[in-house]
């Protein structure tokens, strides 16, 4: 009977505290061997759901089954043999040696007068080596680092020998390296031993990376459930977390990841849409990124061009939500792109020319710019002396000199450029307060 049943079967589960509903009719089925990430904003009910699965929380309605058996009908020791728990952190009061601490996990297999057996010790030692602490068995819990302690807690839970492991935000207090290490170990142990894992995780990128499935809770309800690739979306982030984010796909792993940009409630979805400007940045090759970021941070509306797709300035512009004229990778600028670029220049209240490397494919940027210089304040960022930017035999240097001759102001660094932009905009009253511009695609 137990062999066929799901690891977890939560049906119609409602829980409340002091009259406040924490979970509303939640369903959750977890198959054996699955790695499920439970995620959602603070207060969405993740911990409550885990506690209900552990049988700590008496529900108002609904039921929880572990491997087919109702959790509230399982004697507490039997429950401990089916499900182990890794809390966010554990209160450590005594400097207990790790070997002894991990043996505490064997409690459910002992009776009143039992002593720890050789088999218990072997299991504890194996759990310690599974988490990479085999050589620290004699060290005390208080004398190891926070990352090691979290691994020790995992080892104690593993020593419990349960086929189901619940983790409640186990990486909260860890640095990024220890986060990856801990979840990586859980992932490989789960695969190797066939252990089912449910982990409450705040970090969606970690969830997408390690979990087979992501379950999203919001205000006590399950609002999404499925593989990372289908569950994570910009729309979900905006709806559930209120965060405006970019969803990308990691080309090497094919996994989705998110770049959070700002809170939706902070204002317009397109950054700087109501700010001063627009300020147009001519860049490329990463030379434009610092000034792009600085302008956005200062609240300017920003456009950019003409950039090549996959170029790091193009990536930056996209990440910051900056309107840009974009060309296919490595191709010379097409007439269409140049036209779009000129349209953006026409809109601009100020132009900043980044010290970008110039070659045959983008020399047209400087040439297209020239007619605007007399009409629109143009600020020319000088390249650092040790970084040549002319890869076209003097043509670029000549084109930049021509801009200066036409009235462009040269500045040495980004702060100076920002001041120059502010001066230029202060000199002319704003021309428009256009609404958010749609991002221009290739």
């Amino acid at each position, binding site marked *: 009977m137990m062999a066929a049943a799901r690891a977890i079967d939560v049906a119609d589960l409602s829980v409340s505290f002091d009259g406040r509903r924490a979970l509303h009719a939640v369903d959750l089925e977890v198959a054996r061997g699955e790695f499920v990430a439970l995620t959602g904003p603070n207060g969405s009910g993740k911990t409550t759901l885990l*506690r209900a699965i*552990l049988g*700590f929380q008496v529900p108002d309605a609904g039921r929880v089954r572990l491997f087919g058996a109702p959790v509230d009908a399982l004697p*507490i*020791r039997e*429950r*401990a*043999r089916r*499900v*182990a*728990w890794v*809390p966010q952190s*554990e*209160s*450590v*009061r*005594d*400097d*207990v*040696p790790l070997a*002894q601490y991990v043996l*505490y*996990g064997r*409690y*459910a297999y*002992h009776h*009143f*007068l039992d002593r720890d057996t050789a088999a218990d010790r072997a299991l504890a030692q194996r759990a310690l080596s599974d988490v990479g602490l085999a050589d620290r068995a004699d060290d005390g819990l*208080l004398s190891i680092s926070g990352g090691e302690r979290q691994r020790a807690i995992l080892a*104690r*839970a593993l020593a*419990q020998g349960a086929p189901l492991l619940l983790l409640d935000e186990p990486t909260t207090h860890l640095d990024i390296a220890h986060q990856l290490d801990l979840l990586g170990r859980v992932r490989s142990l789960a695969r190797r031993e066939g252990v089912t894992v449910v982990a409450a995780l705040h970090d969606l990128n970690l969830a997408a990376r390690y979990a087979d499935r992501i379950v999203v809770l919001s205000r006590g309800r399950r609002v999404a459930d499925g593989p990372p690739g289908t569950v994570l979306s910009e729309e979900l982030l905006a709806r559930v977390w209120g965060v405006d984010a970019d969803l990308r796909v990691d080309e090497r792993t094919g996994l989705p990841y998110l770049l959070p940009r700002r809170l939706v409630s902070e204002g317009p979805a397109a950054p700087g849409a109501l700010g001063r400007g627009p300020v147009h940045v001519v860049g490329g090759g990463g030379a434009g990124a610092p000034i792009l970021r600085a302008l956005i941070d200062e609240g300017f509306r920003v456009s950019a061009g003409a950039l090549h797709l996959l170029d790091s300035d193009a990536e930056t512009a996209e990440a910051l939500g900056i309107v840009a004229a974009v060309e296919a990778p490595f191709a010379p600028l097409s007439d269409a792109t140049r036209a779009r670029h000129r349209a953006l220049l026409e809109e601009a209240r100020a132009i900043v020319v980044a010290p970008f490397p110039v070659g045959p494919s983008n020399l047209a940027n400087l040439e297209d710019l020239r007619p605007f210089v007399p009409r629109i304040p143009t600020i020319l960022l000088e390249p650092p002396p040790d970084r040549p930017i002319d890869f076209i035999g003097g043509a670029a240097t000549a084109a930049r000199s021509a801009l200066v001759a036409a009235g462009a102001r040269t500045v040495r660094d980004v702060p100076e450029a920002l001041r120059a932009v502010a001066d230029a905009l202060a000199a002319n009253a704003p021309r428009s307060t256009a609404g958010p511009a749609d991002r221009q695609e290739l």
Partner: protein
Amino acid sequence: MTFIVWDLYLPEVLLALLVGAALGLSGGALQGVFRNPLADPFLLGISSGGTLGAAVLYVYRIGEANAELYLPLFAFLGASATGLVVLAVARGRYGSVETLLLTGVAIANLLSAVLSLVLLYNPVGSEQVTFWLLGSLGLADWPVDGLVLGAVLVLGTLLALHGRELNLLQLGSDVAQSAGVDAARVRQRVLLLAALLTGAAVAFTGIIGFVGLVSPHIVRRLFGSDYRVVLPGAAVFGGLFLLASSDASYLAFPTSLLPIGIFTAFSGVPFFLYLLYRQRRSSPMGAG
């Protein structure tokens, strides 16, 4: 000579060992349950309850002819009843440790007020009550020892078998529960046993302070914090500590019958402070 050794000295030695063991063991168990290094056997209002029981006896001159029978009875009833009331009151709110601790402190304060009131209007018994409050091994004889021995053997053994559970409770109720410990039930059981054991010990001796507080700490410092070691260790240390205090008190003040509770504090506090500051580096329980 035989009379002195056999009928006076040896019963007192045994009673010192037994009462010290009971207090050390109860103190260790309560520190474990409450996860609090300041817990001692009198935490649940047991001392106030016992004292009140004794005061009622003295003040209202109950069973004056059989004082050596009635005093322990009243003290035991007062002490254990208080412990049970605290447990019962705190039971509702999922047996949270903090609730229990505060309930104990509150009820102890209430009983102290009642005691003060009783003594205020009946100054007759107050001298005996004060003496009882400071503790004495003067009631020791073989029948008394037999009773205390029985209590320590039965209750103490049951209590000492909870080391594994107390180890897990140190990690928090939830963790303990996830590992298979029925936290609420274990807590109730340990508190009940500790209350009865303390009640049985103080019934014959009055309140002897400090043994129950300090013995578990010293064992922990010497042998580590595994409660399977701390509990029996605190019993052994508590017994020896009380015996040594009693002997030293006779040597130092042969004629004055100095209350034993005073001497345990005088000898124990400096030693405890020495241990505390010598090992400053490794933090004491609860400070980590």
